């Protein structure tokens, strides 16, 4: 077991070691300074010319958001069409069928918004064509959208008073050509050399050593698995995601995939420090977020290493921890670490089945997604954290009786209203839809959908409730992991989670960008002794407290009905 804990510590330290220089580099990309990746200059100039883009054209926050939303809506239509008609398109060696319209709606939105809920299994629900032209494509562009939104926000904060958030097209394109794509190539090559398939061959049929005839699904998976992590997307090539032995072949690739999903979100924190020249702020943000992560991680590792008490009662020792839904090559500690990072960072890939996690781990996974700002997804994690900061600024301002200020700009009613609405949205979407789903299960179990409500739940009682709570929490956090026992490929889940996904992606991007756009427009007030210093540890702890209070008020009752009740029934 020691080796497994050391493995986790090593993985985290390695992530930090790589994130620091990467953050420095990303700050250079945002500011357009010279770097070794200037070798992409000719390619980028070509892309801009073909697309009719003037990369230097300034955009105010409204123009910035319009550009972002236009191209995103276009991708939605494009992705849906391809998914429905994938059986008529090339690169389909396994002869898989088209997706139903409701499933295509859900899948297209889910990948568009960087969530990657998958109500299908990759082996049978997609073709190689849609795996590449829809899934891989959206995994790149949705991550780049998030990074570009963050860069726009930083531009608003960098200058004392400005209208210009930078050019969305330019920031978006460079996020791909200079950050995501080069890192993906490194990651994909490492995966390929460790046994992840890359060729376009279809299923193989073999006779096993014992004489059974089985098939083995394959495909050009390595490239997709790299961007699924680096872009904090999380959608797997195969049905069981990174628990699948071809998607995540050994302990080395497990470390690699865990580093890949955490490195950009952490690097973006450091990038914020370098870019705004506020390194102390970056340190405080990093410290508070790491504290939050540890609060979720340590109980998870303890619960998983400790094993299932119900199985212990049968007389089984469980020296290797709770192994249901886990793989021997990873063990419980690395699986626990993965389940924590994948839920705080909105990746949503899994290397163990979260549905079979211990109740404490399930609780921590849910909390990670509800808070959704400890590191958080590519770009959007910091945007989510900004909302908490604005609320903390407001409350602190009230406590000391001064007009609240954020980085030299007065925070007034309009900004606080936006922040409050964004915060309330999560609780409203998650609890409202869980209530609706629970109502359907209880009162209309025979509704004639592809999966009847009576058969939705794979587990009875509290855990069944947790399955529904997890699904909407994951959709709202744009996370994409699931308690996968839930029978979710039917019109109810496809449509309702699709709605949650759209609202929960774009409102939390529009809100913070609008706040920054409004603030950046205001008169700059230089620091004085009475200024609230947001880069102090006191204010960091204040924000941490605000995060806990808001989420406890919003979600404690729901958590009581699910994982907490299960915990007390089991121990």
């Amino acid at each position, binding site marked *: 077991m020691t080796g497994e804990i050391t*493995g986790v510590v090593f993985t985290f330290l390695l992530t930090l070691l790589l994130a620091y220089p990467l953050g420095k580099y990303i700050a250079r990309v945002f500011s357009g300074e010279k770097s070794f990746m200037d070798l992409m200059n000719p390619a980028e100039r070509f*892309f801009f010319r*073909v*697309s*009719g883009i003037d990369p230097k054209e300034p955009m105010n926050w409204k123009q910035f958001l319009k*550009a972002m939303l*236009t*191209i995103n809506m*276009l991708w939605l239509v494009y992705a849906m069409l391809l998914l429905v008609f994938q059986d008529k398109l090339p690169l389909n060696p396994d002869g898989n069928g088209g997706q139903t319209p409701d499933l295509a709606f859900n899948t297209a939105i889910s990948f568009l918004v960087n969530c990657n809920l998958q109500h299908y*299994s990759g*082996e049978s629900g997609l073709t190689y064509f849609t795996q*590449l*032209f829809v899934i*891989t494509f959206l995994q790149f*562009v949705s991550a780049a959208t998030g990074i570009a939104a963050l860069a726009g926000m930083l531009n608003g904060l960098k200058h004392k008073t400005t209208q210009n958030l930078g050019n969305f097209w330019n920031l978006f394109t460079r996020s791909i050509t200079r950050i995501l*794509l080069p890192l*993906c190539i490194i990651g994909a*090559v490492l995966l*390929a050399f460790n*046994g992840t*398939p*890359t*060729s376009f*061959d279809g*299923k193989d049929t*073999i006779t096993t*050593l014992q004489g059974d005839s*089985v098939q083995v*699904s*394959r495909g050009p998976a*390595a*490239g997709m698995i790299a961007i699924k992590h680096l872009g904090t997307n999380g959608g797997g090539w*195969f*049905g*069981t995601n990174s628990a699948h*032995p*071809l998607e995540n072949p*050994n*302990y080395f690739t497990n*470390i690699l995939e865990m580093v890949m999903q955490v490195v950009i979100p952490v690097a973006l924190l450091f990038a914020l420090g370098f870019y705004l020249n506020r390194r102390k702020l970056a340190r405080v943000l990093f410290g508070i977020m790491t504290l939050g992560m540890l609060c979720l991680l340590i109980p998870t590792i303890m619960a998983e290493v400790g*094993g299932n008490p119900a*199985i212990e009662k049968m*007389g*089984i*020792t*469980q020296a*290797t*921890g*709770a*192994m*249901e839904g886990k*793989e*021997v090559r*990873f063990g419980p500690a*690395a699986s626990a670490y993965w389940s924590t990072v994948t839920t705080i960072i909105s990746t949503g890939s899994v*290397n163990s*089945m979260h*549905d079979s996690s211990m109740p404490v781990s399930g609780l921590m996974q849910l909390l990670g997604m509800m808070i959704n700002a400890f590191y958080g997804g590519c770009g959007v994690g910091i945007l989510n954290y900004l909302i908490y900061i604005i609320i903390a600024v407001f409350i602190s301002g009230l406590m000391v009786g001064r007009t609240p200020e954020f980085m030299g700009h007065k925070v007034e009613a309009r900004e606080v209203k936006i922040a409050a609405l964004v915060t309330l949205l999560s609780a409203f979407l998650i609890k409202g839809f869980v209530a609706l789903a629970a109502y359907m299960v209880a009162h209309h179990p025979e509704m004639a959908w592809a999966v009847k409500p009576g058969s939705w739940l794979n587990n009875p009682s509290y855990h069944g409730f947790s399955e529904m709570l997890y699904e909407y929490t994951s959709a709202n956090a744009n996370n994409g992991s699931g308690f*996968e026992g839930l029978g979710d490929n039917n019109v109810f889940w496809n449509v309702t989670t699709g709605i949650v996904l759209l609202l929960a992606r774009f409102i939390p991007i529009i809100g913070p960008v609008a706040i920054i756009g409004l603030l950046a427009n205001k008169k700059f007030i230089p620091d004085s002794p009475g200024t609230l210093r947001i880069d102090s540890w006191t204010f960091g702890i204040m924000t941490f407290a605000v995060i806990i209070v808001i989420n406890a008020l919003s979600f404690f009752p729901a958590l009581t009905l699910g994982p907490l009740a299960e915990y007390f029934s*089991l121990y």
Partner: protein
Amino acid sequence: MKKNLSISLRLTLVMIVLCAVVYPLVIAAVGKLTPGVGKGQTEKVNGKVVGYSNVGQKFTQDKYFWGRPSAADYNAAGSAGSNKGPSNPDYLQLVQDRINSFLVHNPGIRKEDIPAEMVTASGSGLDPHISPASAFIQVKRIAAARGLAEEKIKSLVDAHTEAPLAGVFGPSKINVLQLNIALDELK
């Protein structure tokens, strides 16, 4: 609006070519240089492919080492975990049945020596590995089924135990398929 749409269309086409065509083809080309030429590494017996190194197989005969229970029945056309929650009574009954069945097939072992992974389903349903403890506990059965000395099989298990990464990180494990292939070759 019109300008945004025109840029959006053209930039989308550019990005499709870059991310969905050029990138996967580059990776596929590099993949050809890897040990499995990008198709997945296989295990052969007498020149015939008997399985993929990384994909677990079903072993039910007493003369082979068994892998873990699987919710996908080891058919790698798909993959699946059980997704059973830890407090689910049906699931706990299933675990109890697996314990009983394991004891019947492996006479003389004690219940508390059965490693947890032998009675719980893996995440992928295709887990190719078991822990060394899970292999050692089956040695007696296999020795009886094959008429071989236990010591001989134990040393085979030792030889097939893969140490943690770099000797320090993660669990020790054994690839069941590779171990069984070696077992068939044992005289």
